[in-house]
């Protein structure tokens, strides 16, 4: 990476809001980290299969965050959005004018991080902002942190449970050139709450874009959190996203990650279980074609006894796509009676498709039950034969089986309308493949 690009990024960073107090200190520290660590090369064990260095080019722009209208977003709205709180990021900047907050102020707090860091929530920001950095000591993560000045603070207040989801749209506008977006959210879920939050990543236009986001979520005692990430960006989009979930009280967190398109997608998902009896579920589906590369890295950090985690990631790899999976389960010394399961299943369809998987266990406590499994293979020939014998064409039989394969993950989306919405995206993709194949 040349000095001119670093200078360009530095200049941009120094003009962001939040240039005082803790936030300024945090972002400057992160910027120094970014300069020190640089962009991870292929030699970096965590970036073995995924190249990001080519994304840092001089023509990258940071966008103005004002080029998008509500009409542009309409095509990408999630189901029942009229009832939901909608938070919109344009090119990494929170856009209050396009957002609709439909919860009342007693339930939900939404404000820029730069305001929250100096106001009544300052101590919370101090406690939670940047907690994910220790899990991803690399330049990419630090670079996002350096731009936290344009980030957003969301807090779901204590004792509040609602059916209304919170939708977050992260939109990169590539219509005017190569755009580099860095959304950052700190999402606090206070005790005894139930909330469903979905992030939707889309690109406007067919140009090149690069999204580097960090979403930090902290769930307190007795919270029930459902988190869905839908990544459906343009064919020229690159995406590095980190979702960091921290359980500071005994609670249940459920995360589903759906990756459908783009050029290079990297999803980091961390579950940090800091308290006894925590429970977490992680599910992921990658449905890929073209030359898309999707890299899912997950970390489950079991710090205390009696925690449970369950993980299932599936990938359908068509054409020349590549699926990468790395799942780490850490069980620390004191975390006895941990139950942790992990499974990764890949179906290779394309002649040039490839799957790289590395399930990883690191265990320091003896009284635990941990297992992982992974498979790479084709569609079951006998199942195909069964369907063909009953009069289904090859393409339909294949679509049916793949849809069933994906259903294990789709079923994990608890919010009914959203599940149907994602199911439709998946079905469309499979049907599209059928026409392509004929």
């Amino acid at each position, binding site marked *: 990476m040349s000095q001119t690009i670093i200078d360009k990024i530095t200049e941009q960073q120094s003009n962001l809001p939040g240039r005082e107090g803790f936030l300024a200190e945090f972002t400057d520290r992160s910027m120094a980290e970014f300069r020190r660590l640089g962009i991870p090369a292929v030699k970096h064990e965590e970036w073995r299969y995924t190249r990001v260095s080519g994304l840092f080019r001089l023509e990258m722009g940071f966008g103005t965050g004002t080029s998008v209208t509500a009409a542009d977003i309409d095509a990408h709205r999630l189901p029942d959005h009229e009832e939901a709180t909608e938070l919109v990021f344009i090119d990494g900047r929170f856009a209050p004018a396009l957002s609709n907050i439909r919860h009342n102020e007693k339930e939900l707090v939404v404000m820029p991080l730069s305001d929250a860091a100096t106001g009544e929530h300052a101590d919370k920001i101090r406690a939670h902002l940047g907690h994910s950095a220790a899990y991803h000591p690399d330049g990419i993560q630090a670079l996002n942190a350096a731009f936290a000045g344009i980030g957003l603070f969301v807090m779901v207040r204590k004792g509040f449970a609602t059916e209304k989801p919170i939708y977050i749209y992260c939109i990169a506008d590539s219509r005017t050139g190569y755009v580099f977006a860095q959304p950052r959210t700190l999402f606090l879920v206070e005790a005894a709450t139930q909330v469903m939050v979905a992030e939707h990543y889309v690109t406007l236009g067919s140009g090149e874009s690069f999204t580097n986001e960090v979403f930090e979520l902290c769930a307190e005692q007795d919270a029930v959190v459902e988190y869905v990430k839908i990544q459906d960006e343009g064919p020229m989009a690159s995406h590095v996203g980190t979702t960091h979930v921290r359980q500071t009280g005994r609670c249940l967190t459920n995360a589903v990650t759906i990756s459908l398109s783009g050029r290079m997608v990297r999803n980091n998902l961390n579950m940090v279980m800091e308290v006894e009896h925590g429970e977490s579920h992680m599910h992921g589906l990658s449905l890929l074609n073209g030359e898309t590369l999707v890299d899912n890295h997950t970390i489950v950090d079991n710090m205390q006894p009696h925690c449970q985690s369950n993980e299932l990631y599936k990938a359908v790899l068509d054409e020349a796509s590549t699926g990468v999976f790395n799942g780490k389960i850490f069980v620390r010394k004191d975390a006895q009676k941990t139950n942790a399961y992990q499974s990764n299943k890949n179906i290779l369809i394309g002649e040039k498709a490839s*799957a790289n998987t590395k399930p990883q266990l690191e265990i320091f406590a*003896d009284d635990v039950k941990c297992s992982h499994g*992974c498979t790479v293979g084709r569609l079951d020939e006998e199942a195909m034969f069964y369907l063909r014998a009953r009069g289904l064409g090859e393409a339909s039989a294949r679509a049916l089986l793949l849809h069933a394969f994906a259903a294990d993950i789709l079923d994990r989306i608890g919010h009914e309308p959203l599940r149907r919405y994602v199911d439709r995206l998946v079905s469309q993709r499979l049907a599209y493949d059928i026409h392509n194949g004929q």
Partner: protein
Amino acid sequence: MYEENDDILQQVTTSEYKYGFVTQIESDDAPKGLSEDIVRFISGKKNEPEWLLEWRLKAYRHWLTMEEPTWPNVDYPPINYQDIIYYSAPKQKLAPNSLDEIDPELRRTFEKLGISLQEQKRLTGVAVDAVIDSVSVATTFKDELAKQGIIFCSMSEAVQEHPELIRKYIGSVVPTTDNYFTALNSAVFSDGSFCYIPAGVRCPMELSTYFRINAANTGQFERTLIVAEAGSYVSYLEGCTAPMRDENQLHAAVVEIFAGEKAEVKYSTVQNWYPGDKEGKGGIYNFVTKRGLCQGDHSKISWTQVETGSSITWKYPSVILKGDHSIGEFYSVAVTNNFQQADTGTKMIHLGSHTRSRIVSKGISAGRSNNSYRGLVQVARKADHARNFSQCDSLLLGDKCGAHTFPYIEVKNPTGIVEHEATTSKIGEDQIFYCNQRGVDTESAVALIINGFAKEVMNQLPMEFAVEAQKLLAISLEGSVG
């Protein structure tokens, strides 16, 4: 069963590391340190041809440009490569004509280790090549094997007598530049075993090499080369021990296996280098590169290893499945106790079509040890219908040890099927309770359960080895229960 358990217990209570004695024999050492002169000295001592010296020097020069790998999940103070003696040979009459001429002290050493150098012990039916420190001291059953055209001798002998074979195959499977320790080994290797099975011959007995480090401050760098021509079969055993010393000693070996069409090679190791004492002081650094090449179609290479010794193990016996329909297998039991660290596993590289591989790895950690499985299964773009199944299970005894798994799976062909599964758990309390109830005390119950846990791998070992390995398992885990 009771008797057997009592037997194990007896062993357990009496011995920590029973091979820890030192043999008082004079040895002929090179000065400490490593330089081109040392490489020339070793080559000169062995009376080697010019091309081999060149080959060594090339490896040495390459080694100078390399850095020690830091990626394994092990932790040790930096090794001072200038503080090691790279050549140490027991002083004895040049080239003994018969076994009677071998230094009796030396012969006693091997008797203590339970290795028969006396050919009258034909019952065991195992041909042995014994390597002490850096030099092969005796090879048994040589003549008998020669009748079938099998060559089984020390590496230095092979260099003198079969230079054409050595030149053809040495470094062909593990290139000198492969990694830091292969480069080092290639530069300074002092001896090892060479085994050549001609086409169509089924080797009538188990071949075995016994390695022993005796002298202090030395490193052992041996090289084993096995060539199995088309249609041949050989089963090969390797055993290792070393005296107890407070300093760490380095063992960096290379094993190369070449399998021609329809050839089968079975390689079994019981590695019992000195693991260090209970405080983690001393012990062998075991940094070994083992690789087999299934060059011909329908060939098969199988690695079986029982790893109980060494303070640090760094070892990945691999198979390159180049020939169509070739088979690679890896069976491993790795036990770590006290402060031992093991980072071991395998690589299966599928290049040919219809190639198959199977990995069974059992890790047992106790004390404050760390045990890692690291494996790679790679299916290349052109390897149609490749099949792999891997299973790695870890057992934790105690809450201060760690078990880690790092499997890498890279599939580039949609017709390949790769499966991997791994579990980590402790010995079930209900299993121990079941044994207790039937009058088996806890220590024996644990030994029993562990033997059951490792059975899949033990079954792959030849008979004589299996018994030894089973005892070793129990000894290694002494005191870790309760």
